[in-house]
């Protein structure tokens, strides 16, 4: 049974259509990431589910309770939806201690004091905050604040946990660690979670399923590996990884294979649209699928090296093709001049 159903959500802000009929479904115990560039409407969708934003049309059901339905004129206020929400800024109440922050929702639900104490203590304990109950938010580090925000959102066992870029205020190192324990925690508490992020790596590592939004529509949805390795559209392919992009036109098509060519180059790749020979097309390839080759060969181009960057775990080589940069990764410094670059045909997608 789905924990959350949002159907055909439409939201306009003035002239601007923020959401143009988005549908998202979340099964019990599932973590779904709403992924998309800024302005794609992902946070608006989350806020619509939370009841903080009122959609112009659509239907939202949480558990078995319809909380919003334009057709049936249902609009349950945020406080009655029984969800947990972790804000991007954490939104910890600065005038309350950590304990009081976490305990507030329980007090609102009329839980007896004798019961509140152990429940809050347990929530803090499970997030490694056991010693910090009497502190105020401003006395905590960013990482600790982030965990208090999480403790506050889960302490009353909401059936649905919403998270709005919860890790974006942490520094890079902490963020990578947090991905692992956050996913582990959600699974351990058997929560269903809707997770908003603009970071595709974060989405892939935390979520069971990704809904990729673009300009207020669902661009593609599916499991992380499917979205990454089998993108249905150019937008998805570009958004999900680091790529090289070549503009050209299709020279010939044979089944799944097609040949695409520009003024000074021609490569064969996998056709991912219904385009015919002669049509303009874009070829896209993940940088990690490419490598330098010793000599000329099939689907290889000889290109002049323009610069070499050292970024720590690897080297980045920049080549020029028709004035466009082509990036290749490698493990050693190379000298200038022409190099042969291999574009594996099954990894070169033509859109």
């Amino acid at each position, binding site marked *: 049974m789905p924990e959350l159903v949002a159907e055909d959500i439409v939201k306009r802000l003035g002239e601007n259509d923020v959401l143009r009929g988005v549908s998202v479904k979340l099964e019990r115990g599932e973590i779904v990431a709403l992924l998309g560039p800024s302005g794609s409407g992902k946070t608006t969708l989350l806020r619509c589910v*939370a009841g903080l934003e009122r959609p112009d049309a659509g239907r939202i059901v949480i558990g078995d309770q319809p909380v919003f339905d334009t057709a049936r004129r249902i609009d349950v206020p945020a406080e009655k939806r029984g969800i947990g929400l972790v804000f991007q800024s954490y939104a910890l109440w600065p005038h309350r201690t950590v304990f009081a922050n976490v305990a507030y929702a329980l007090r609102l639900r009329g839980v007896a004091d004798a019961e509140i104490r152990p429940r809050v203590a347990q929530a803090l304990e499970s997030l490694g905050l056991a010693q910090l109950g009497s502190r105020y938010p401003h006395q905590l580090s960013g990482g600790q604040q982030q965990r208090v925000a999480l403790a506050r959102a889960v302490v009353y066992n909401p059936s649905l946990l919403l998270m709005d870029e919860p890790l974006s205020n942490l520094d890079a190192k902490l963020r990578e660690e947090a991905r692992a324990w956050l996913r582990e925690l959600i699974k351990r508490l058997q929560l269903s979670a809707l997770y908003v992020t603009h970071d595709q790596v974060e989405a892939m590592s935390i979520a069971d399923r990704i809904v990729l939004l673009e300009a207020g529509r669902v661009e593609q949805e599916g499991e992380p590996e499917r979205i990454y390795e089998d993108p249905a559209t150019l937008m998805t392919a570009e958004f999900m990884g680091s790529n090289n992009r070549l503009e050209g036109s299709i020279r010939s098509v044979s089944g799944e294979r097609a040949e695409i060519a520009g003024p000074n180059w021609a490569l064969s790749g996998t056709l991912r649209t219904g385009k015919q020979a002669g049509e303009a097309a874009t070829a896209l390839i993940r940088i990690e699928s490419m490598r330098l080759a010793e000599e000329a060969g099939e689907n290889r181009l000889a290109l002049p090296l323009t610069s070499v960057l050292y970024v720590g775990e690897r080297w980045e080589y920049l080549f020029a093709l028709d004035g466009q940069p082509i990036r290749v990764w490698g493990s050693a410094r190379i000298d200038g001049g022409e190099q042969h670059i291999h574009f594996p045909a099954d990894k070169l997608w033509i859109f």
Partner: protein
Amino acid sequence: MRLPSARNLAVLAVAVAVLAPLGLLVYQSFLDAPFFNPSAKPSFAAYQYVLVDPDFHTALATSIFVSTAMVIIAVPIGSLFAFLLVRSDMPGRRVLEPLVLIPIFLSPVVLAFGYVVAAGPVGFFSLWAKGFLGVVPWNVYSVASLAVIAGLAHVPHIYLYASTALRTLNPDVEEAARTMGAGPLQVALAVSLPLIWPSLVFGGALVFLLGFELFGLPLVLGGPAGVLVLTTYLYKLTNILGTPSYHLMAVVAVVIVAITMPLVILQRRFIGVSARYVTLRGRGQAVRRMPLGSYRWPALLLVVAWLGFTVVVPLAGVALRSVVSNWGEGVNVFEVLTLDHFAELGNFPNLVRGIVNTLLIATIGGAAAVACYAGVALAVHRWQSRVGELHDFLVLIPRAIPGIVVGLAFLWLFLFFRPLSPLRNSPFSLWIAYTVVWLAYGLRLITAALLQIGPELEEAGRVAGASTLRVYFDTTLPLIRFGLLGSWLLIFMMFVREYSTGVYLLAPGAETIGSLIVSLWGTGALDLIAALSVINIALVGAGLAAALRLGVRVDA
């Protein structure tokens, strides 16, 4: 409690409080006799009388002249002071910053009285100057002195808006000019001040508007020379025909509002512009100050000279006058020192009531007013709707109506509306008029505090399961409690300072220090006025000291 209806209700209450007095004024202006007179008929007679009265024309011209002069004086000085205090390394700016704002909190009628006893024909400073020069080189009873004094007294209003805008200015833009060879004054004139022009226009419009609302200064300084401005013309009409000439007064009030209302509307448009200008630069940069070099001390001297003229001279005059038994040419100060005037106040029950009422209205009434403002502010808090916009406009209306006119309108309301009549002779009548007069100011204070709270703090409360009302009590109000305290202190000072609103409401039981000074001025009881003025200043001073001590931003 369904909140949307509570919101509409709050806006409705504001509309009644604001529009009822205004409506009554307009209605009265189209009658040929006081509205409670059964023979009163609709007519343009009042307009015909007032609009052809030569005194009215002179008063209107004087008001326009004084307002214009105020803008010409206050805008350059106020913006220069803002640059010096906020952007430069002028010595002593920390101490001067709160001091520059003092004139805002001083009662104009006290200020005017101070100038009379300090610099009038036989004032302390006049006689001192006469000792050197043989003559008094100035005449305080003239349109020119009125314009200069009013202009200098309104420097803080410009300073307020200019300094707020300058604080958000990125120092890089000034330093860029500096590196290209511009001196401090050139930087101020070519970069800093042009960048904040919307704030200067806004402040200038405010000062022009306040020029039409001046009452205490022209009453005291213009009276002896027969100089009338619109408000004092209105005041003079009170008894001109023997019977209360309410219809004529209403016409003058309507004329004043017809001039000030467009200014308020214009100002409101400019708020948008200045906000845009500020956000362009946005962000609180670390404050880097422009070195003034050899201008440092002349700059300091300039600010101190202004403070001396605008604050020290009149206050010293009032203080000294309150402790001498009599004063005139050839009197030695040390032979006439006395505290009798303060003791004498006790002989007049109305003066004692005035002091007690002022304290009650400022403390308890101030707190009640802040509670009202907070209620209204919360009702429209984060409310995007047509009604909310209507409310934003409504609260600006009292700003366009001089205090004396609001007082007049409320007097009529108390006479007109029977259920309110029993409260007529009590401080309550003053409290409600004060609360309406300071509505825009009070709401701005509370709204500024509310804007400090990120919306997500309230949303987090909603998501946790609290209703909107509950969120207000559990999260919003606790978070702005310091802002509420600060608002109360500022409202306390404004209510102590207020005088013109109480002029027409003055009645046994409804006296205040300010309105008593105005009425005593007509009788020439200088000893009592001086003693009352000192008490008034002391109360304001206590409020200001408390505010500064607690770190309240007095430049709100």
